[in-house]
């Protein structure tokens, strides 16, 4: 057992899942929500030459994905340090 105690192991996993779920909610809302389900509503809004829903489907969602993974990498590194389960 790499953790100091059973409760630490549980808490680490809980925090991990909570970070993951939050980010996956954003992932879902931006791609499936803005890009697909709500696309017609958002297409009523235009900025520059883009219909907003179309922009989310072809540009915005991809940019969001990059940011999400970035936050995850940072968040998990901090979590590993907090519970002292990082490598070396």
């Amino acid at each position: 057992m790499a953790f100091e105690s059973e409760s630490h192991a549980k808490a680490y996993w809980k925090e991990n899942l909570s970070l993951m779920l939050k980010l996956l909610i954003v992932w879902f809302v931006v791609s499936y929500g803005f890009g697909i389900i709500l696309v017609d509503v958002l297409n009523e809004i235009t900025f520059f030459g883009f219909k907003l829903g179309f922009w989310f489907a072809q540009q915005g969602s991809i940019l969001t994905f990059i940011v999400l993974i970035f936050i995850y990498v940072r968040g998990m590194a901090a979590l590993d340090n907090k519970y002292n389960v990082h490598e070396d």
Partner: protein
Amino acid sequence: MDIQTLTFIIVGLTFALYIGIAIWSRAGSTNDFYVASGGVNPVMNGMATAADWMSAASFISMAGIVAFAGYDGSVYLMGWTGGYVLLAMCLAPYLRKFGKFTVPDFIGDRYYSQTARTIAVICAILICFTYIAGQMRGVGVVFSRFLEVDIATGVIIGAIIVFFYTVLGGMKGITYTQVAQYIVLMFAYIVPAVFLSLMMTGHVLPQTGFGATIADGVPGSGQFLLERLDGLSTELGFAEYTEGVRSKIDVFFITAALMVGTAGLPHVIVRFFTVPKVRDARRSAFWALTFISVVYLTAPTIASFAKVNIFNTINGPDLQGVEYDNAPSWIKNWEKTGLITWEDNNNDGKMFYSGDERNEMTIDRDIMVLANPEIGELPAWVVALVAAGGVAAALSTSAGLLLVISTSVSHDLLKRNLAPNITDKQELLYARIAAATAIVISVYFGIYPPGFVAQVVAFAFGLAAASFFPAIIMGVFHKRMNSTGAIAGMVVGILFTFSYIVYFKFVAPELNTQENWLFGISPEGIGTLGMIINFVVAVVVHKFTGDAPEEIQELVESIRYPKGSGEAKSH
């Protein structure tokens, strides 16, 4: 210098570069083949992953599909990038901590079952075969155009080169070759996009040019590009470019199948086993997506520029059609490959391209990216560069897939399963036979494709989504899941998905319309339903068959945190 000579020179130079790097980096390292990449930093590994990942489908076909499908093409853009979010958060770090090399190894050990391992191997082979068939088509398109031969000959030439490329080595594992390939294919993709954007809108960045107004001197100047594209599309009897025609549920399911499939593809997952640490597996996923996005954010811009250009050059600025005798040279060049055809239905000597009965043109979507520099009248070296990029994309991915197929057959299936007593020499022989068989089958599908490159490839994702993804997710997040449940889920999931696709694509293609689809889901999107079925079957069967043994549950606990990850162990 003419285009063909330039193409030979540039493609030849890039080949020399890859082989040179491969020899140089191999000579410098005596380490084991796989562990050699263990010392690579996450940025480099991300770049290599991107090259491995971006195949002929991404490079050649995707922008073409988006150009012809408009909004509907977004499924590929979101699907093939969104999967990396799942990969980074739900799979890569845990599989890295687990520390084996192949997906069947994980499934076999986690579900403590030889049967599970065998099923995983069969799924892996099936997925890779489907995937590589799409690659061969792409390679064929490239060679047929630049050697001016028909598509069948192009596929065969491509296949021979891929075969030698794979036999040349285990070189595939050498990350730096793929870094070079990424750089070549990225430049090949971006340069024409920048030229086109400048020409059409005056913007250097294609991503802003995409939403800008059309420049002076181009038909429709002053209008927003996308607005013009919507207008032209409806006027010519196509669906509005930014709206699309697929049903919402179908778009949803296809996107999900591609995302989940990405996270379940064996040759992608394998890349995350070879980094030194769990933290690096996460970082690699970040860098891989960043490098992939450079291309994926550009693809939809190329698509829209190309579509406007096609309308302009074929139908003319006044939409009356252009005289065939005055047709631009790209049309005549591509006619030789049979990928563009013109039939003068109304005998007026003019070409006309439309989505209704006035149409006289047949344009294969796979030519868009390759033809783009010619359509935009860009310098000859750009045309040659694009050819080199297409070859790099198709070759690196095909070689990687062939390697997975041959190791699956020779190692996972024979050595670890059916015939544990074979010698190394025999194992190698079987690996070569497997690679050769794979090539022959993929040549057949390359010549007689059941769809366009990106579509063929899309099936591989459906199969991966319906088989591996649930098994791996439950393997990590549901520690009590047992072998019976997981096996039942995989079998039902892949059988369902495979039968649905085969039925609509091969058995009864005439029924392949929305009315006949289950819940209106096309064969491209059915993998998502297959995945849901897999989860449900596994959970239900688990309810009746008891929990996984204690030691397996402890194993699952131990892969949930990074500490103590050693180097990936040989299998």
